[in-house]
């Protein structure tokens, strides 16, 4: 008896077994956690890997070298198509008959004559001389060069005929086809021809939309949050407003699109497809996110700071603007940028207000017709050409780059302005 008593309850066999079970449970939990992180990382790698592997080729574009003799009369008649074609025929001397030459015309991008014209316009002194020009190849040639159109497939099932392939081989043999960085992708608007299509129109459209969104939602959102958090009496009405704001943050974005369609286009008669309307709709969508994030950030400021400011005789507004708001700013900024990033990636509401149109021109103002990056991705994904597949992935990469940039900015600002107390 006395021996058993001296042994503590925590030294018993039963307790040791219980302790082992507790540690085992912890180990299982850790393993489950690591598995979850592992699976999530794997998914991310697969997603990014798939997009990068499909999209990186879009950043290169095949070009064909032409020795163009800029005949004065042809230039005056603006017959650049003929000039370009003659130069091409000269590159492939084997093709002599009309039928083959007509097929050869397809090797060049339909934009090639315009490239030449732009060159001449930029430097009229070259008229009458012979110039070496690299012009864009047609998207099918580009795809063939990248290996997406295979020559071992029977001709009937192939996008490129044997004649064209023979011509390409001849050009390759002469070193007249090269692969260059695809600047068009970054400097052009949309096009039906993949080799002439670029993302710039969509990027500018997205930027204009975001500017409107930011100018509207940031000041209104922060002011609303400050009022609700610092000044508003806590009663049934403010409770109701709070519940509604929280609900609005969860409303599907397409509903906001419908609202924008009904109110901004239908009632106010604002122009269709305009970044102005897109920005207004996105602002409505982003407001609840910003208000909620700002309120959380304001709540996190210790009440002792408010008391300190009030205690030395600061007015309530001074307390907020001098002390509470600066301390809440990192949180507000983070919330705002994340809201903006969400708006940047949003497609559905833009479909409703007509920002899904095929627009070649780069928008120059808030009321010009425009589209946005995610909508551009959607439209390219819908196009049948093989070359648009890689451009879709490339556009996704560009969108991801912007999102990473914005989130990086959020982290940077948070670190920069974060204060401790």
């Amino acid at each position, binding site marked *: 008896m006395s021996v058993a008593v001296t042994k503590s309850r925590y030294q018993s066999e039963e307790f040791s077994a219980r302790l082992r079970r507790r540690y085992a449970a912890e180990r299982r939990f850790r393993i489950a956690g690591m598995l979850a992180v592992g699976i999530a990382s794997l998914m991310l790698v697969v997603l990014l890997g798939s997009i990068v592997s499909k999209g990186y080729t879009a950043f290169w574009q095949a070009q064909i070298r032409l020795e163009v003799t800029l005949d004065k009369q042809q230039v005056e008649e603006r017959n650049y198509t003929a000039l370009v074609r003659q130069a091409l025929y000269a590159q492939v001397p084997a093709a002599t008959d009309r039928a083959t030459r007509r097929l050869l015309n397809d090797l060049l991008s339909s934009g090639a004559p315009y490239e030449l014209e732009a060159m001449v316009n930029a430097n009229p002194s070259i008229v009458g001389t012979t110039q070496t020009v690299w012009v864009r190849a047609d998207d099918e040639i580009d795809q063939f060069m990248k290996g997406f159109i295979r020559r071992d497939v029977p001709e009937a099932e192939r996008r490129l005929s044997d004649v064209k392939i023979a011509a390409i081989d001849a050009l390759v043999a002469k070193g007249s086809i090269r692969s260059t960085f695809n600047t068009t992708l970054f400097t052009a608007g949309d096009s039906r021809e993949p080799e002439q299509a670029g993302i710039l129109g969509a990027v500018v459209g997205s930027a204009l939309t975001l500017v409107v969104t930011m100018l509207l939602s940031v000041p209104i959102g922060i002011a609303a949050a400050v009022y609700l958090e610092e000044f508003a*009496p*806590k009663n049934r009405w403010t409770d109701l407003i709070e519940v509604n704001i929280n609900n609005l943050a969860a409303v599907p974005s397409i509903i906001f699109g419908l609202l924008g369609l009904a109110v901004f286009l239908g009632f106010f008669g604002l122009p269709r497809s305009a970044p102005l309307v897109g920005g207004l709709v996105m602002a409505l969508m982003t407001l609840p996110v910003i208000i909620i994030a700002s309120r959380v950030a304001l709540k996190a400021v*210790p009440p*002792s*700071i*408010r*008391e*300190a*400011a*009030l*205690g*030395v*005789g*600061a*007015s309530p507004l*001074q307390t907020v603007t*001098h*002390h509470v708001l600066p*301390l809440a700013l990192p949180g507000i900024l983070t919330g705002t940028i994340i809201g903006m990033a969400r708006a940047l990636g949003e497609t559905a509401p833009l479909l409703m207000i007509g920002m899904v149109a095929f627009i070649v021109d780069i928008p120059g103002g808030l009321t010009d017709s425009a589209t946005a990056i995610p909508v551009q991705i959607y439209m390219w994904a819908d196009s049948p050409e093989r070359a648009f597949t890689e451009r879709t992935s490339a556009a996704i990469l560009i969108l991801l780059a912007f999102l990473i940039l914005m989130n990086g900015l959020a982290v940077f600002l948070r670190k920069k302005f974060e*204060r*401790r*107390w």
Partner: protein
Amino acid sequence: MSVQTHIPATAMASRPAAGIHGTKMVARDVKVFYGAKQALKGINLEIQENRVMALIGPSGCGKSTFLRCLNRMNDTIENCRVEGLIALDGEDVYGKSIDAVQLRARVGMVFQKPNPFPKSIYDNIAYGPRIHGIASHRDEMDEIVQTSLKRAGLWNEVKDRLREPGTGLSGGQQQRLCIARAIAVSPEVILMDEPCSALDPIATAHIEELIDELRENYTIVIVTHNMQQAARVSQKTAFFHLGDMVECDDTEEIFTNPRDERTQGYITGRYG
């Protein structure tokens, strides 16, 4: 156990109540409600000029609530209702002639937990004078900052690092910084809500010395849980219990010869 054993005799004798002290603040039948709950049940109190009044009593007795009525800090609390009269120099602080912001410039406050702004030491002090437009140029502001820090006994410790954040100081230094901040706006009354409860004994001794010195220029009301502290720093003590002000008298009188048995019980440590 004798009451006397709690109180060092030297402390009692240090500052005899000399001269005639005018009345700085008056409370008449002050009742405070938090929603339906009544926190103060009709407090009558006179606070004399250039003296230290200590408010003691068990937790939840309403002493902090009363203190916060004196500069209307309770205004910021939702559902808080104040009845009765509180006057500063004969003017009703809840009346139309006094604005809450103006009142808080005249009646400064030091809080239980040191709460310096997350700004530099200099800006902590300069903030109040700046918003009230007390200093017209830089030199004047530097002067105010220096004087305030000197009065708070912090100058020698921080004079070389005025640009460093006030939150980087130790707890006791932070509290003295808060006192300096309160002094900087030249208030008439300083309210202190358990200013030493978060501090170690050495920092506490520092602050107590400081309170004793500040008495020459300011009227001070201090809430404390530490009865030795009340005895050391105050000339008048009011004992609060369950929302009532049980007894208010000269500190010496309260600690040596309490009239009410609740006071007797509290100061001898039977409860509270």
